[in-house]
């Protein structure tokens, strides 16, 4: 399979605001435009990758991602994941995935009560087999932007131990002499992204679609997305 054969679906909720950005980013890499799927749809056409984009779905009412996580389309996304389909949740998309239980943990209010909007340095962790990390060098650093108010990753200590033991932590915030202090939000054990037990679902707070070219200030997002897409077609 070639990259241009890759079928990507992007779920759109009221309040999603990175849906178009990730669509353009994926199209830039694959030359194929992803499908935008409205949250009221009850079914999903066959897809190789489903992306839950960033934004403020349903105005973050009740809890971030809570209402989106129970939208009609999410049953189809859960079925897709249960069949081993690949899913990527970015920022609010990560929050949605935790609300559905597709990835473990919860994202709570940033420890310093401030919206965090800046570049962060990430360390790629050694993980279980996953298309989202298999083509990345372990311990490689990526610089990606974050923009969130609830990115403080929380899970019980026992569960955190298990995630570390099983290799389900994809990215950690790491220090940088240029960018400064590593952990921007108080996330437990500096966790910036986690992977499901079968390796096919990733949730991450940083925005790869906002680092697609030097004009964005960096292209590590393009690198990460390209490596993920290549792993999905190989």
């Amino acid at each position: 399979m070639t990259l241009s054969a890759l079928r990507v679906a992007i779920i759109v909720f009221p309040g999603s605001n990175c849906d178009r950005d990730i669509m353009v980013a994926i199209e830039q890499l694959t030359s194929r435009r992803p499908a935008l799927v409205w949250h009221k749809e009850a079914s999903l056409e066959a897809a190789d990758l489903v992306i839950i984009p960033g934004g403020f779905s349903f105005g973050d009412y009740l809890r971030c991602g809570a209402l989106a996580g129970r939208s009609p389309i999410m049953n189809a996304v859960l079925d897709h994941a249960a069949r081993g389909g690949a899913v990527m949740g970015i920022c609010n998309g990560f929050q949605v995935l935790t609300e559905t239980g597709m990835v473990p943990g919860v994202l709570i209010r940033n420890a310093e009560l401030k919206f965090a909007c800046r570049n962060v340095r990430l360390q790629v962790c050694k993980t279980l087999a996953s298309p989202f990390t298999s083509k990345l060098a372990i311990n490689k650093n990526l610089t990606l932007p974050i923009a969130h108010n609830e990115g403080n990753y929380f899970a019980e200590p026992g569960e955190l131990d298990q995630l570390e033991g099983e290799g389900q932590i994809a990215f950690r915030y790491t220090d940088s002499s240029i960018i400064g202090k590593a952990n921007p939000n108080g996330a437990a054990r500096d966790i910036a992204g986690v992977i499901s037990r079968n390796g096919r679902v990733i949730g991450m707070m940083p925005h790869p679609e906002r680092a697609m070219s030097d004009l964005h200030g960096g292209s590590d997002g393009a690198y990460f997305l390209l490596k993920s897409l290549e792993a999905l077609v190989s």
Partner: protein
Amino acid sequence: MQAIVNIVLKDGVLDPQGRAISHSLNDLGFSEVSDVRVGKQILLEIDENDPARLRQRVARMCETLLANTVIENYSIVVADEK
């Protein structure tokens, strides 16, 4: 009937909002305040006359949507329960 759902963060879950409020209260002279936890209250009007059944349904609502039981505990008060 009316049901009231009270949702609070579990012990051990950081509540930065509560901490900020606690600091403010201390600054305002309420030095006796040692901890603040912020929760939420949800009032539900429900077409149901049987308190037991109502309670059961509301518990389902909490488990399905209203609370995230990874970080939150909930309690239910049935307002008209005698």
